[in-house]
């Protein structure tokens, strides 16, 4: 499933989409950034509730396909601007992390 397709699912909204055709392969859920860098795999969709600017660097370096912000948390303008510059996709989900992952699993299966 492409990142742009995930953003089109009911309950999901595109926040930054500089690399919309990237394929999602697997999911990682976590808020501790070092943990995420140690465990997330390249091309995973990364579900988190963290919105500070460092999530963009973590996503870029860990090479995940997109950040999915659960619980409808909204990133600020600086985060979105940096994400566009660094080619990091950000999608907002109105569901909690678990339901977000279940939705992803349903659509990527």
């Amino acid at each position: 499933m492409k990142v742009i397709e995930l953003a089109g699912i009911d309950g999901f909204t595109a926040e930054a989409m500089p690399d919309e055709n990237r394929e999602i392969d697997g999911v990682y859920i976590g808020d501790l950034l070092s943990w995420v860098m140690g465990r997330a795999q390249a091309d995973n969709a990364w579900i988190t509730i963290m919105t500070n600017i460092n999530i963009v660097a973590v996503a870029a370096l860990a090479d995940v396909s997109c950040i999915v912000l659960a619980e409808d948390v909204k990133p600020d303008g600086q985060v979105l601007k940096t994400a566009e510059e660094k080619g990091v996709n950000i999608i907002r989900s109105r569901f909690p992390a678990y339901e977000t992952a279940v939705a992803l699993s349903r659509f990527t299966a």
Partner: protein
Amino acid sequence: MSELLSFHYDVDGENFTSAGQASVRVKKNLRQLGVDPETIRRVSIAMYEGEINMVIHANGGVADVEVDDTGITIILADNGPGIADIEKAMQEGYSTARDEVRSLGFGAGMGLPNMKRYTDDMKIESEPGKGTTVTMRVNF
């Protein structure tokens, strides 16, 4: 071993907003060199963890990256407080980071273990009160 390319970066201290800039630049440079994506991922994650450590603990420092025929060497040097007990610092979950740092999602005691995990070789030289130099090697 012939040295093909080297990059030098200054890492700003106490600046979490710009933390990771050197790593992102390294990533870009390695991609231009045609290095394979998984190697780039390992190098940039290890370097970012080191960069974050320098921001959290040492008020910044310098990063040097050297690319040769067989791999990539990353040298991170700072003039911070040093690491009193390196063995302890290498344990997953051990951290001396401040609460403010933890609230950003760092300081989980995963930095050094991640650096070791993603590199083929890692050496820490540290003297309390003088500073720390971490040398990491990722082979192609």
